């Protein structure tokens, strides 16, 4: 057998503190998503994936410190996302 032995003891949960662990814990929380151009989207994070594609509810668009728009549901494509920041404790 050339293949390495499988490791049944290896946890299926992501490593604590890792990006995938963060993504798991942040769903359902209020977040601020900043995109590359510096515009912020504040809202309730309803779902997301490993590409950092994000769906927000009750979204506010903030640009240059001013509220510029409000949307009900928003989808942000992951390639534009600079960061996802929690607005409440995880």
């Amino acid at each position, binding site marked *: 057998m050339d293949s390495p032995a499988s490791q049944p003891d290896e946890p299926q949960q992501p490593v604590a503190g*890792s*990006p995938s662990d*963060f993504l798991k814990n942040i769903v359902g929380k209020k977040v601020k998503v900043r995109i590359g151009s510096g515009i912020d989207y504040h809202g309730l994070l309803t779902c997301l994936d490993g590409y*950092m594609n994000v769906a927000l509810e009750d979204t506010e668009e903030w640009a240059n410190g001013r509220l510029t728009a409000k949307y009900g549901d928003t989808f942000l494509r992951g390639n534009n996302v600079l960061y996802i920041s929690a607005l409440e404790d995880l």
Partner: protein
Amino acid sequence: MASTILPLELVDRCIGSPIWVLMKNEREFTGTLMGFDDYVNMVLKDVTEYEVTPEGITETGLGQTLLNGNNIAMLIPGGKGPRA
């Protein structure tokens, strides 16, 4: 060469410690490194974001943050940010 370590092993040794992240553009972050993945997407806590402009540096405080690795250029373990 038992003493050589991979670049990402160095980053792994920074988990739990302060780190200074410089992006490809004029944006920088400091915070405590919680974790990262193979793309060097990073989870930071107690974050300060810096936007460096000719007029000066603007700071933004953030809670726990997942930083997209796509625009990260440089990591400085223990770095205190652009003001230090």
